[in-house]
C-alpha cells in the first residue's frame, strides 16, 4: 500500500504528457543490469495486520507501572501532561519540515524561539540553539566547539560522567584527534581539586551534575579547574534539577548542554529524545545546529527566522561548525509545551518532589540497614546503594517476589569500584508516591533481611 492516488486513467494521461511509453520506460536511464525485474520478496500487510503485529511486539516488552519502576541511569520517568502529546500530534506541527520558508513556518519558529528562551532561563545562559540529537551528542558537539574556540585538543571529562556520554564523545572526536582525559571521583562526587596542580592547557573541562551516581557537583570547583587550564567549562545538567540546583550560569559555565528527555518526553526505549545546547553570547558564532532569531517583516511586525546560517553545513560545507541538519524539532517542541503546562511552580514541585522521594527512600533503607555508596555527598534524584548482597540477586528478587524494578547494576559501568557487584543505582521522581517508597523499603528489607541484620 504505497498511499498513491493514481487511477489507471491518470497514469495514461500523465505518461502521454511526458512522452513515455510505460511506467517502466521512466527508468530507461538506469542500466538494465541494475534494474530488478520484479518487486522485492517482502510481503505486504493490511493496516489491520500492521496494528496486530505491533500489539504482539508491545506485549513482548515488560511494561512497568511507573510507581514500581526505579530505573533511571540517564532516562527518567516523569509525569507527562496529556495536552502535550496531543499538541505535538497536530499535523501542522508534525508534518512540516525545517522552517526554510519562514513566512509559512512561524508556528514552528516561534515555538523554537520559546524553547531557546526557556532553556536560557533554566540554565542561566545567554543563548541556546534549536536542539541536538540527544544529551550525549550535545556534549560531543560542545567538545568540538571547544576545540575550535581554544585551538587545543585535550579535554577533561569526569569519571562520573554517564559512561554512554563518554563513549559517544570518544566516537565523535576520534576523527579530530582529540584526547579525552579523566577527572577522578571521590565517592559520588568529582575531585576537581586533585588536578589543580597537574592540569595542562586544554580546550574544555566538563562538569556533569547531577552525575552518573546522582551526586550533586560543586560547579565553582569545576570552574576553578577550567580557569587553571585556560579552558571552557562545559556543564552537563539534568534540566529537571535546575529549578532548585545552581544553574550553569551561576557558576560561570561557558556551555551548558544535556538531555531534554526529562522535560516530558516519553522513555520510548531511548529515543527520540532531544539534546539542548546553550552558551554565552560570545560563543554563538561557533555554535552547532540551527538557531532561531527574532526579526520583523516588511510591515514591521514581529516574526522569526533561522539565523546565523553561515555556520551551517548547507553553506559552509566542510568548514561548517557541525554536520547536523535534521535535529529533534518535534521533541524540543514537546519539552517547551511541557514547560509551559507545568509552569514555574510545577517545575519546581517536580524537582523538589524528586529530591524528597529520593531522600525518603535513602532514609527508609538506612533504617533497614541498607547503606548508601556515599552518604556524605548530597544527591538529587538518584542514589547508589551499597547492598549487603549482590545487586544482581537483589534486583532479581525484588522483581520476582515483589514486582519492583529496583534500579541499575553499577558493575556494568564501574567494574573497578570496590565491591562493584553490590552497587545499585536507584532513581525516584514525582511519579513515585510515598506509598511506592514504603513498598520499596519493605520489599528491600525482606530481600536482604538476614544479611543486613548480620552486618548492622
Amino acid at each position, binding site marked *: 500500500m504505497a498511499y498513491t492516488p493514481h487511477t489507471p486513467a491518470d497514469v495514461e494521461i500523465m505518461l502521454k504528457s511526458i512522452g513515455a511509453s510505460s511506467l517502466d520506460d521512466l527508468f530507461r536511464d538506469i542500466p538494465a543490469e541494475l534494474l530488478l525485474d520484479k518487486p522485492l520478496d517482502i510481503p505486504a500487510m493490511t493496516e489491520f495486520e500492521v496494528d496486530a503485529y505491533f500489539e504482539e511486539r508491545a506485549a513482548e516488552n515488560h511494561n512497568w507501572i511507573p510507581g514500581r519502576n526505579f530505573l533511571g541511569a540517564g532516562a527518567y520517568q516523569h509525569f507527562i501532561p496529556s495536552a502535550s502529546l496531543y499538541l505535538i500530534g497536530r499535523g501542522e506541527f508534525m508534518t512540516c519540515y525545517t522552517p526554510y520558508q519562514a513566512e509559512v513556518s512561524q508556528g*514552528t519558529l516561534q515555538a523554537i524561539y520559546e524553547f531557546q528562551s526557556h532553556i536560557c532561563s533554566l540554565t542561566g545562559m545567554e543563548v541556546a540553539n534549536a536542539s541536538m540529537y540527544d544529551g550525549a551528542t550535545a556534549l560531543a558537539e560542545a567538545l568540538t566547539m571547544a576545540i575550535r574556540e581554544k585551538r587545543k585538543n585535550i579535554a577533561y571529562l569526569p569519571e562520573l560522567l554517564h559512561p554512554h556520554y563518554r563513549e559517544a564523545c570518544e566516537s565523535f572526536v576520534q576523527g579530530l584527534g582529540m584526547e579525552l582525559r579523566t577527572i577522578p571521583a571521590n565517592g559520588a562526587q568529582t575531585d576537581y581539586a586533585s588536578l589543580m596542580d597537574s592540569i595542562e592547557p586544554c580546550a574544555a573541562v566538563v562538569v556533569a551534575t547531577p552525575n552518573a551516581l546522582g551526586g550533586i557537583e560543586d560547579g565553582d570547583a569545576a570552574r576553578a579547574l577550567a580557569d587553571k587550564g585556560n579552558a571552557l567549562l562545559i556543564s552537563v545538567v539534568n534540566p529537571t534539577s535546575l529549578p532548585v540546583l545552581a544553574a550553569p550560569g551561576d557558576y560561570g559555565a561557558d556551555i551548558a548542554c544535556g538531555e531534554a528527555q526529562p522535560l516530558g518526553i516519553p522513555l520510548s526505549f531511548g529515543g527520540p529524545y532531544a539534546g539542548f545546547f546553550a552558551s554565552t553570547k560570545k560563543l554563538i558564532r561557533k555554535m552547532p545546529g540551527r538557531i532561531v532569531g527574532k526579526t520583523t517583516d516588511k510591515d514591521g511586525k514581529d516574526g522569526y527566522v533561522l539565523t546565523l546560517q553561515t555556520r551551517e553545513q548547507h553553506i559552509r560545507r566542510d568548514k561548517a561548525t557541525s554536520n547536523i541538519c535534521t535535529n529533534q524539532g518535534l521533541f524540543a517542541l514537546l519539552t517547551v509545551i511541557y514547560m509551559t503546562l507545568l509552569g514555574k511552580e510545577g517545575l519546581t514541585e517536580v524537582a523538589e518532589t524528586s529530591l524528597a522521594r529520593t531522600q525518603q527512600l535513602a532514609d527508609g533503607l538506612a533504617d533497614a540497614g541498607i547503606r548508601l555508596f556515599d552518604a556524605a555527598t548530597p544527591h538529587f534524584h538518584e542514589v547508589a546503594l551499597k547492598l549487603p548482597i549482590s545487586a544482581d540477586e537483589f534486583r532479581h528478587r525484588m522483581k520476582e517476589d515483589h514486582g519492583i524494578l529496583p534500579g541499575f547494576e553499577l558493575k556494568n559501568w564501574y567494574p573497578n569500584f570496590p565491591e562493584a557487584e553490590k552497587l545499585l543505582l536507584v532513581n525516584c521522581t514525582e511519579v513515585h508516591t510515598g506509598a511506592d517508597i514504603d513498598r520499596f523499603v519493605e520489599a528491600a528489607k525482606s530481600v536482604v533481611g538476614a544479611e543486613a541484620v548480620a552486618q548492622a
Partner: protein
Amino acid sequence: MYAQTIPLINEKSSHGRRGVLPPSASEQERSEALMRVPAKLRRKAAPAMPEVSELEAVRHFTRLSQKNFSIDGQFYPLGSCTMKYNPRINEKVAAMAGFQRLHPMQEEADIQGSLRIYHDLQEILKEVLGLEAVTLTPAAGAQGEFVGMTIIKAYHDAQGNHDRDEVLIPDSAHGTNPASAALAGFKVREVKSTKEGRVDLESLRAAVSERTAGIMLTNPNTCGVFENDIREIAKIVHEAGGLLYYDGANLNAIVGRTRPGDMGFDVVHMNLHKTFSTPHGGGGPGAGPVGVAKRLLDFLPDPHVKKNADESYSFYRPSKSIGRVMGFHGNAGVLVRALAYALAQGGTGFWDVATYATLNANYVLNNLPPVFQRPFGDLCKHEALVSIERISREKGIKAFDVAKRLLDLNFHAPTIYFPLVVHECFLIEPTETESRETLDSFISAMNQIADEIANDPEKLQDAPLSLPTGRLDEAGAARELNVCCRWDYSGADS
C-alpha cells in the same frame, strides 16, 4: 492561517497562575528535602517560566500550529526532503504503552518485542539496500553519514592504510557530505559534474590516488539525474583502493527497483523520515540507518541487534566497533513508525513508491511553462530540477521571489538554490502520494507566476502579499541577534 501576531507565552503569564498540576510531595516534605542540600549548591531563585492555565497553553500552541504550512495542509514539494504523506497507523502503533513506556536500560528479557522490531527492520532494510547488515542507531541522515565515514576510516586503519585521508565528493553533493567527512577526519576533494549533471569520469580518474579513502555519492544525484556510469565509477574507486558511500537522501526514486548494493556501494545511509514516511516534525526527529557490505560488518556502532539460535534477540558490540554514537540506541520511536510503513508496503508497495514518485516528478518537469528551463534534459527521477537563470538576468527576478509568491498561492515552495551547480534553481519533489489534480494546480500556479514575471514582476518582489507574515528581514535577524527573550531572571512577576 491564524492571522494575528501571537505574543510570546511569557507575555501572557500571570504570577501564581497554574497549568497542569504534577504529582507532588507535601510542601513540608519538599522544603525539608531542599534544606538538606547545602546552600551553595542550590539555586538562589527559581528560574522564570511561563505561568498560564492549561487552556491558555493549549490555545497558544494550537494557534502557533495554525501558522504553519504542513503536508497535511499543503502541497510541500521540497526537493531532497521527500515530503510524502505520513500515515497515521505509524503514529498509532508508536504510541502503544508497551513502546512508549519502555526504558532503554531494561534487561534484555524484558525488551524482546522492541529488539525484534529492530531485527525485523534491519532485515527489510538489508533487502532494500542489497547489503549485509544495517545499523539503526544514527539519529538522522547527517549522523548516518558521520557513522558511515567513520566506519570507512576504521576499515582503512585496520588494513594499515593510515594515509587514505581524502574523500571525493561531487560539487553537486548535499552540504552534509563534506561536513560529515571533515568531522570524521578526512580532507575533502571536489569532483566536477558534466554538463549532463553527472560525475565527470575524467575528473574522477584524475582525482583518485593512494590517498583516496572513498567517494560519497547520491544516486539519483541532487540534479535529479541517475548516475548511469555508476558501475564504472565503482570500478575506478575500488581499483584505487577506496570505498563507495551512498547518500540515501534520494532513495525514494529507486526504492524497490534497483539497489545501492548492486550498484557497487559499500556503505549506505538512508533517511527514514524521507523514504519511510516518518514525520519530519518541523526539523526532526529523523533516523539515518547505515547499511554496510560484508567486509565492514565488524565495524558497526555499539550496540547492534542480533537474533540468537533460540529465537531470542539481543544487543552485542561488534568486534571492531567504531563505538557508541548515541546516548542509547537511536530514535527507537521513529524506527517503530518506519517498520509500520515498511510492513504496509512490502515489495510491491516499494515498487509503486519509486514508480509513482518518478511519474509525478516527470509530469511536473514536462508541464511547467518554458520560463522554468530544464538544465539536464526531459527525464528525471523523483525530483525535477528547473532554473530561471535566463529570465532572472533579464528581469531581475530571483528564485527566492518565485518561492515567496508560491506561498501566496497556498503551495510550499520547492527547495531553491540547491544544487549549487545550477543557478536560480528550483528542486521540485512532488512524491508519490500526490494526485494528478494537485500537480495540475501547482503547474497552474507556476503558469500564473510565469505570467507575472512577464507582466507584473514587482508583485513577485514583494511576495508574500496575502499571508499574515510578510517577507521577513533575515539580514536584520543576523545583524541584531535576538535568540531568546529577556526573562526577568529573578522571577516572572511582571
